[in-house]
């Protein structure tokens, strides 16, 4: 069937609400408004205000309440409008959700799913555009998902709800309108492995989330030049699927990591380090990186575009890595 990323996500939420009466959606404007990005549009009318629960603008309060409700036997899906707003709930996420199982010696797990929009590309300026999923991937106790395809938008949520521990799902804002075909019987998918989106033998382009379309575009352009790029979609930023990353590098001997986060202290830095630590002798070239410029994301379209990883920059980085062939 024809669908969009937004509709696939909505179908996943509806499916979860129908499957399990412990599931409810809670967040700012998820109900009467229909969701800031219209993901939950129509669900309020279908499931009512108890299960599609509008909250005040209290990120710390309702994220913490989600943790408490999860401890109390519910399976909450908490929506945070954007990753920048999640900073208001950092205490609850890092000091409670990620630590309670450990501090309690294994007694209290937190089966909570938190969804939030991430990323730039929509001229929303520096307080709605950042890509902080790599930050969250720093935290032991959390699982970090970055669905980039319709299948993952449709399938990751249910598996995340079955996870006994907190899962954060980052939905890139530019993906919501992506349209395509989705199998009628599309359902839950695994939330532990990376996926090869395009096999290739000359270079591994490693990415996730919102930059996957640009990377696939770059791979097409590279193919026209005779460079056969493999595109690896990480899907999960914590725990990282090391085997998939190292396996791809072992096949291609070259890697460029594409990450919309800033370069310094980023998930791309972590990937580069792991490849260098574990596959140094497989490499025919230094690991390349294409990241966002280290500025708060600007509003002006040309400046925002100049700050972000684009297919053009990815192609250039791949050419450089391949050109470095000994």
């Amino acid at each position, binding site marked *: 069937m024809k669908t969009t990323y937004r509709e696939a996500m909505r179908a996943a939420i509806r499916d979860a609400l129908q499957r399990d009466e412990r599931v*409810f959606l809670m967040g700012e404007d998820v109900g009467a408004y229909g969701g800031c990005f219209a993901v939950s549009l129509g669900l309020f009318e279908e499931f009512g205000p*108890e299960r599609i629960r509008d*909250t*005040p603008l*209290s990120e*710390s*309060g*309702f*994220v*913490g*309440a*989600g*943790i*408490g*409700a*999860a*401890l*109390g*036997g*519910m399976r*909450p899906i908490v929506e945070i409008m954007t990753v920048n707003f999640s900073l208001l709930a950092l*205490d*609850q996420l890092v*000091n*409670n959700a990620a630590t*309670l*199982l*450990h*501090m*309690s*010696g*294994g*007694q*209290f*797990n937190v089966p909570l799913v938190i969804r939030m929009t991430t990323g730039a590309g929509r001229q929303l300026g520096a307080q709605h555009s950042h890509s902080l999923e790599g930050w969250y991937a720093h935290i*032991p*106790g959390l*699982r970090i998902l970055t669905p980039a395809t319709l299948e993952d938008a449709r399938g990751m949520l249910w*598996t*995340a709800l*079955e*996870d*006994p*521990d907190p899962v954060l799902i980052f939905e890139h804002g530019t993906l919501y309108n992506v349209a395509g075909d989705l199998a009628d019987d599309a359902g839950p998918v695994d*939330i*532990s492995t990376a996926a090869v989106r395009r096999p290739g033998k000359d270079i591994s382009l490693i990415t996730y989330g919102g930059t996957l379309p640009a990377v696939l575009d770059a791979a097409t352009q590279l193919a026209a030049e005779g460079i056969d790029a493999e595109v690896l979609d990480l899907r999960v930023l914590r725990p990282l699927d090391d085997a998939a990353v190292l396996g791809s590098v072992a096949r291609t001997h070259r890697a460029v990591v594409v990450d919309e986060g800033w370069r310094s202290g980023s998930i791309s830095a972590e990937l580069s380090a792991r490849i260098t630590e574990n596959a140094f002798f497989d490499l025919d070239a230094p690991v390349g990186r294409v990241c966002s410029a280290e500025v708060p994301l600007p509003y002006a379209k040309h400046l925002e575009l100049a700050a972000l990883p684009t297919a053009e920059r990815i192609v250039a980085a791949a050419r450089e890595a391949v050109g470095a062939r000994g």
Partner: protein
Amino acid sequence: MSGTSARGSGSADSDHTRHLLHQMLRVRRLEEQCVELYSAAKIRGFLHVYIGEEAVAAGVMSTLAPEDAVVATYREHGHALLRGVSAGAILAEMYGYVEGCCRGRGGSMHLFDAATRFYGGNAIVAGGLPLAVGLALADKMSGRSRVTACFFGEGAVAEGAFHESLNLAALWQLPVLFCCENNLYAMGTALARSESQTDIALKAAAYEISSWSADGMDVLAVEEAARRAVDAVRAGGGPHFLELRTYRFRAHSMFDPERYREKTEVSRWMERDPINTLRNALETAGQLTEKDWKKIQQDVDAEVKAAVEFAEAGTLEPVEELTRFVYSERSPQ
């Protein structure tokens, strides 16, 4: 400063009052033991003792049912003990032993116990309030008539999480009992130096939450206030808020030189020691004999002694298990 009077003349009442005295003494002696063990370097990290404030936990806990939930702070040894966590498991936790209630992963500030629905032990001031709201939300959505009691100090009142939580609980009419242990100092900062409005019950009232203050040095007053509130919460009356006015006799932690308060202030409050006050009142009313008091002390001393022995015999979790409990040991399906 009114003294506690032993209320009721029936033997059931006096039995219960003696029970509360016993409960407070259990906390007092355990805490004194903790201080001693800290000085002996058996306990490390931060240690915050509850000495002086025992009437609050004893009075509130006495009104809760086993199916209720408790969320507390980093000064929570007494709450854990009175909720039913054994003194041995508490001390072993502080020793860092696997026999501790959290296998030594939590320590003094992070006591947890699933069996008694004791949800910590939270060392972020006001960090537990949103959890309590969520626990209550789960109960309300599931149609259960359970109460979540949430303890926090008056310092928490300055945090945003306090206001967000009170608003959510009131907005959604959730079964939370907020228990503000107002001991007048947030670490070393006096209430009047941190709050423009020092009447804390008034802040809760602003959220349309039924709230009142009680003398936190009088266990019977605390219990009476808590019983009224718990009954109302359980009956579906929405959140309630108690401001329990109390005082910390000891330093904030073992590192606190107490530059911020006068010794005379401390000694004035110590004249209102909740244990001595209740004991005197019971004796005056003829409801506590020398023999009764001796028996209570003997029981408490034996309990604490056994707890120390239990902790002393504890063992270290094998270091190979370091990375356990970061994620559950059941992988996603």
